[in-house]
């Protein structure tokens, strides 16, 4: 069966050069970076080289980076780390209604611990309006956490403006940039933020590695207490292979990002245009332009996203729909609901996210297959038949 991967916001394939870079760490480079002897020294150097590559990508200082196990852990470290350290100064935080569960559920956990959290709404296009953050700031606000770009819709949030608002009010600003990093330019020197989350497997690195940039001087409580690794901010022997892979992945992006992004955008635009031209009754979820160059989220009216997703899977096309329950089944996306989408449309939403390696031919195959499946499912849909009759 032909296989087309259009789910790069979920994860990405490992870059061949990344694979090459980690090979020595499966054999002779096995040392513990904390060891003083020869076996540790070379490995320690590789970890710090990777830190430097990533710092160069974001424009931050190497020592501002803390390696973690994932984007989720980075979000936990940023939010809990600040909450626990600054809890005496205030117990209020601001985030948005469309954050990743790593942020939302960390905030919910803190609410149960006596913190107050304001969930800023999004507009119909899925964007957090800076004014709603400004209005939510209270005397005891200690942190604003707004994602850089949304995972489901690709909407790019005005984080610079929100960061300025936070800064004026003397409040720390965190942004979850897991989806944005590598897809749109991020310049830490220009960004008025204090904490930024990124991860390895969304940029053709490995799973199980993430990082947090914490501006120099920011004090956070550790979430994982243990050894002195990461200067006491995150205990546990370093995931050396993950760190090396992530360093390589970001250094490749630094060299080729603009070109790669341009190609991905061209294919995404071609895909989106073809779908809207050939299939009637589609709804674009998210902002038409303020959006990641690789993402398109579409509701296919009169059909369920679940049926679409399974049928696409059966012809080899990987994409995603809504959000998964604990069971692995699909439910209407809370993100689309927060945008005020029609609940029926939200059920019929699919996210296609492109990335490195996708080709024109794959896009054409995916468009053809999608058209056939939509036609087939609509022919079975009583809703569609009723609507067609009414026209």
């Amino acid at each position: 069966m032909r296989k087309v991967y259009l789910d790069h916001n979920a994860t990405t394939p490992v870059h061949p050069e990344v694979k090459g870079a980690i090979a020595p760490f499966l054999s002779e480079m096995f040392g513990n970076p904390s060891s003083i002897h020869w076996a540790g020294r070379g490995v320690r150097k590789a970890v710090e080289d990777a830190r430097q590559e990533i710092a160069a990508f974001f424009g931050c200082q190497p020592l501002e980076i803390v390696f973690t196990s994932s984007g989720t852990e980075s979000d936990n470290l940023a939010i809990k780390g600040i909450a626990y350290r600054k809890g005496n100064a205030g117990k209020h935080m601001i985030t948005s209604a469309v954050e990743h569960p790593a942020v939302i559920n960390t905030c919910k956990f803190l609410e149960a611990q006596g913190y107050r959290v304001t969930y800023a709404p999004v507009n119909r296009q899925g964007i957090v309006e800076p004014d709603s953050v400004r209005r939510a700031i209270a005397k005891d606000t200690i942190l604003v956490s707004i994602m850089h770009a949304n995972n489901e819709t690709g909407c790019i949030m005005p984080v610079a403006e929100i960061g300025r608002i936070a800064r004026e009010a003397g409040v720390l600003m965190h942004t979850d940039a897991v989806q944005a990093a590598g897809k749109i330019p991020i310049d830490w020197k220009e960004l008025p933020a204090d904490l930024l989350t990124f991860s390895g497997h969304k940029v053709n690195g490995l799973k199980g590695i993430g990082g947090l940039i914490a501006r120099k001087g920011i004090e956070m409580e550790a979430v994982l207490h243990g050894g002195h690794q990461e200067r006491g901010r995150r205990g546990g022997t370093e995931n050396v292979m993950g760190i090396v892979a992530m360093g390589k992945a970001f250094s490749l992006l630094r060299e080729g990002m603009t070109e790669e992004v341009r190609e991905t955008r061209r294919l995404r635009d071609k895909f989106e245009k073809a779908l809207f031209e050939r299939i009637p009754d589609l709804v674009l979820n998210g902002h038409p332009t303020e959006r990641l160059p690789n993402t398109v989220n579409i509701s296919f009216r009169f059909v369920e996203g679940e049926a679409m997703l399974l049928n696409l899977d059966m012809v080899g096309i990987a994409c995603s729909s809504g959000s998964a329950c604990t069971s692995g089944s699909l439910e209407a996306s809370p993100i689309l609901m927060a945008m005020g989408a029609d609940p029926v449309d939200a059920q019929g939403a699919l996210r296609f996210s492109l990335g490195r390696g996708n080709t024109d031919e794959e896009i054409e195959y995916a468009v053809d297959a999608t058209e056939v499946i939509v036609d087939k499912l609509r022919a079975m849909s009583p809703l569609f038949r009723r609507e067609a009759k009414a026209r």
Partner: protein
Amino acid sequence: MKKRILAAMSGGVDSSVAALLLQREGFEVIGISMDLYDFSTVTRNRPGTCCSLDDLYDARRVCDLMGIPYYVLNLRDEFRREVIDPFVKEYSSGRTPNPCILCNEYLKFRALLRKADELGAEGVATGHYAVIRRGEKGKCRLFASPDASKDQSYFLYSLDSERLERIRFPVGGMMKSEVRRIAVEAGLPVFEKKESQDVCFVTDDSYTAFLSRKGIQEKEGHFVDRKGNILGEHRGILRYTVGQRKGLGIAAKEPLYVVAIDAERNEVILGREDETLATGAIVARTSFVAGAPPASEFGATVKVRYRHPGVPAAIRFEGGKLSVRFDAPQRSVTPGQALVLYDGNEVLGGGWIECASV
């Protein structure tokens, strides 16, 4: 091209072997489970329900072993609409409903057949113990399993020939021991998913707590005898079911049983043991495997609940309802339960008990 079929999987040995047998027969099998309820609200471990999170894990592993795709389908809306809401309504009208039959009728063999259409599959297979015989001209007939201790035909009476045509019970004609042997030989796990005795979505210890969350308030009222004499106070009709003896909290010379529940008057009617016997029943919302009853008057063996051994009865079909007269009086004929008609091993059809006749 291979014919595609959906196999409803619980992770248990029966549905796993069912899927395996179809794969051996040459079908392209797609494993599926239904997500019917938000089990994240379940605090207590509940083995023996149809579809807990652990069961989904087991089902996924079986599909991995077989090398077939596995999907969990979200049918929470349908389940709420077709099973939970009617369950609540039935309870509050003094009946003791059987949600498993509704789940078979509306979820397994209606919603899943629709999913089969959507996924380009010719039908649905399950691990039920019952036998479908495919006759000429596409007429299908339904029979009890030869393994009487496993027979589930009672729960399947509402399937008609047209739907049976698209349904398969690959282990339905086997003995349980044989099914287990096939699983062992194939290296499949032989989890025994206990036949669910509890209602799967009542996730804490009491029905009353569940029903009160659904907005059904308990109201105290009178225990009365057949003549209407007040015998005491009950704590709300939801707590009682026909045939019940324990937990009434009434002192009497001889043991008292619940013989009926009158929701309108909020009364629970008690009587002696012999008063729990019914000579017949009125059965509504009927359906027949063949599409129609064999005659307007006929004889059949009837079962008034799962595990009921069955009793011969004279039946009259009139105005869409069955009027059933048992050859011998039966205990605990409970409104809200299904009455199923058999001719020997063959399932003719059935319906819902509206009231017992004394």
